[in-house]
């Protein structure tokens, strides 16, 4: 594999004298970063650089190595339509296979040469005079006319804030940063959290650990996941007849689109989905009280849907127990719950999810007039079509504000974002523009409509989730079908942007910062 960094990172244009300004700089060499690079190349943008903080590609899927880690969207939908994988081994791919696919993409499209590994972005600032972005990564500096933020929504994770956390003398394991050297065999383990990672980890832990105590705060809706192997014959057909694979993909896509009528909007279909969830509990959980403990009291879709057929059986295994008492604190030997009991364990698994950066990427970004994106986005992040933010020209977000799917594959949405960014970058390059900056009123109108449309969604039906900011504002999810989202992303309109052009500047020979029209 050459998808790892074998070279010393070259400092592209250190020092003002030999400053090289790339056409595009992409932040992150995960699924979306690489997808962006592929499409940029296809559009003829060759001078690009990808900054990656780790020493290999893969992003979230490189980091998600916990036992049972897998995608909860069918494999066929979990790839870009322009770079499909006919060889998925199962209906839902395990994380290692997704990582292998991402690595294969990097090789197939010869992207590694453009990746600067071990390069974590620390600052992004727009240089108005020079009309380019200055990207700081520690002591290194990079320059680019355009930047695509592809650092992903789920790239950071940290231990939760629970009293006594520091005192625990056993092993602490974070689901998103799994320690594969720690052997759970025969150990007494506590798992905190019952979200998307937990429902995958728990069935695997129950197989090897001595005991597993699962500490739950709020149960989620769990739907059965029929995870079957893909027969070799099917793989061969997909390989030889891509059109068949595309048909399978389309069928799955539209099946998920149909689910939006219940998962995105709060409707009678939502109630039907809940009935299916309850039926799943009824059929797989014997004990009435356990069923009550596992039955959510929020609308299906309001929090992320969980997909698992082995979670409920695992909870009922002889060595596993669900505990719903609140955790009072963590003690040196384990945990104390509010029913006054102490649970001594060898290890605590924190399946407490990711640090979702609703307030913008975790590095400072300063815009056209030195304003700070983090400040502007603290509380209520806003962008236009989730991709552009007024005051931050030539900067394209992926997984930006109000871009999250609640019912379909994230990659389908990401593909739309990539297309949008590529259209914008092409416009800048082909029309020789200094910058394009989305108009304030266009962005405002878009967000008013977003918030209006969000009102009737399940996400706003009263539960608290990581989709919402502290004051209950939804800046993360897109209120619509994937089809609608893709249509808006395929429709890049330069008239939505204020444009500063090189031609105008040359023609009138006016100072550079007055060229915005």
């Amino acid at each position, binding site marked *: 594999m050459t998808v790892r960094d074998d070279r010393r990172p070259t400092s592209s244009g250190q020092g003002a004298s030999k400053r090289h300004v790339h056409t595009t700089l992409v932040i992150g060499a995960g699924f979306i970063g690489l997808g962006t690079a592929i499409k940029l190349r296809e559009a003829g943008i060759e001078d690009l650089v990808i900054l990656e903080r780790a020493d290999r590609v893969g992003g979230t899927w490189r980091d998600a190595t916990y036992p049972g880690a897998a995608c909860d969207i069918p494999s066929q939908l979990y790839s870009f339509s322009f770079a499909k994988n006919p060889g998925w081994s199962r209906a839902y791919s395990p994380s290692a296979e997704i990582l292998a696919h991402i690595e294969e993409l990097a090789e197939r499209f010869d992207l590694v040469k453009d990746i600067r590994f071990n390069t974590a972005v620390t600052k992004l600032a727009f240089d108005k005079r020079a009309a380019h972005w200055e990207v700081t990564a520690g002591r290194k500096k990079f320059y680019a006319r355009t930047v695509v933020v592809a650092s992903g929504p789920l790239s950071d994770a940290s231990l939760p804030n629970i009293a006594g956390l520091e005192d625990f003398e056993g092993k602490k394991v974070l689901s998103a940063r799994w320690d594969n050297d720690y052997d759970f065999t025969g150990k007494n383990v506590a798992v905190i959290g019952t979200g998307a990672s937990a429902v995958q980890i728990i069935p695997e832990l129950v197989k090897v650990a001595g*005991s*597993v105590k699962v500490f739950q705060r709020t149960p989620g809706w769990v739907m059965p996941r029929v995870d079957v192997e893909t027969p070799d014959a099917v793989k061969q057909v997909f390989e030889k007849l891509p059109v068949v694979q595309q048909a399978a993909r389309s069928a799955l896509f539209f099946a998920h689109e149909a689910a939006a009528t219940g998962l995105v909007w709060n409707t009678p279909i939502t109630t039907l989905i809940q009935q299916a969830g309850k039926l799943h509990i009824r059929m797989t959980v014997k004990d009435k*009280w356990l069923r009550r403990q596992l039955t959510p009291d929020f609308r299906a879709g309001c929090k992320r849907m969980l997909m698992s057929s082995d979670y409920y059986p695992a909870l009922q295994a*002889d060595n*596993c127990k669900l505990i719903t008492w609140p955790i*009072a604190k963590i003690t040196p030997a384990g945990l104390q719950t*509010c*029913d006054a*009991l*102490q649970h001594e364990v060898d290890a605590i698994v924190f399946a407490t999810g990711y640090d979702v950066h609703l307030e913008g990427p975790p590095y400072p970004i300063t815009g056209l007039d030195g304003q700070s994106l983090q400040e502007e986005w603290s509380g209520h992040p806003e962008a236009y079509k989730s991709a552009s933010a007024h005051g931050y020209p030539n900067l394209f977000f992926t997984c930006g504000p109000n871009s999250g799917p609640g019912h379909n594959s994230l990659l389908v949405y990401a593909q739309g974002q990539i297309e949008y960014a590529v259209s914008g970058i092409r416009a800048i390059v082909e029309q020789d523009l200094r910058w394009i900056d989305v108009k304030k009123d266009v962005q405002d109108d878009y967000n008013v409509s977003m918030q209006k449309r969000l009102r009737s969604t399940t996400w706003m039906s009263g539960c608290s989730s990581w989709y919402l900011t502290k004051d209950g504002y939804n800046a993360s999810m897109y209120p619509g079908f994937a089809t609608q989202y893709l249509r808006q992303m395929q429709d890049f309109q330069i008239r939505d942007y204020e444009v500063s052009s090189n031609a105008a500047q040359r023609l009138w020979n006016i100072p550079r910062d007055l060229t915005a029209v």
Partner: protein
Amino acid sequence: MATKNSMDMDEMLAKVKGRQWALADIDWDAPGVETISEEFRPKLKAFMADLCWIENVGARGFAAMAKKAPTPTIAEIYRYFHAEEQRHANAELALLKRWGMLEDGEIPEPNVNIRMAIEWLDTYADDMPLSVLGTVIPMLEVALDGALLKFLLEEVHDPVCHQVFEKINNDESRHIAVDFEVLDMIGHATARKLAIDFVSNVATPALIIGALMYLPLLNRIRNNIVEMGLEPEKLYRAMERFEKLGNRGEFTHRVPLFQVIRQHAKMVVNPKHPYHLLANSMVTLSEYYPKALFRPIPTWFKELTYEPVTRSVKKGMNAA
């Protein structure tokens, strides 16, 4: 809410979170066991067993209320109160164990009226509106806190018992404060809603069965403690407190069920009231209730334990 001194529920939740304690905080082997006289032991065991199960029943009540809470903060407070009632039951079991009244792994048998209460709770509690649960639970808590616990502390001189009940009392005072605040919120609803809520629920089989379960349970406990030497005045004062705390709220008096329970409490505490003829015959009758008709004891009822610390997973009786 427009009450005069409306409580800051976020502050209350923070306080609740900050005042957690564990069985392991108490030295269960400290001296003091000898203070319990031989002749008092069987009565005390029966009393503590009832107390412990009533706490557990109360815990289940809070679990049901958490689903009906008017705000997410109050729901979270109820989630804690649910656990705290369980904690009290666990602590009371640990006292029984300390006094040598339980064999290893033994859990006292719930009496028939407790069994009925469990069955009712398990079947109907989650469907009861907040106005019903929110009125009955404060009544139980005031009775527990005001009469039973005080009586116990007068009769039992074991310092560990006092230490435990000081903690329990502190918890209960927060429970009662929130209970009556919520009762007041319930009373703040329109008269029309209160009337509809009341009429539509009084007529339900669930509430009628609930009353049939509640009356003998209360009388059995009352009889037991009177037999043990509790002066009925104490119980009377506790019931008065229910009324007093209720009247302190601006809107509580508007809750019809509050008025019903208040009137009922007056009958319960008056030993000469003809009501006891009815209630006591219900106690006697319930003794003849065929045990075979009980459904299996729900698993939430089996979660009690006197063991402060657990390592691996144990299921069923005495589990943690």
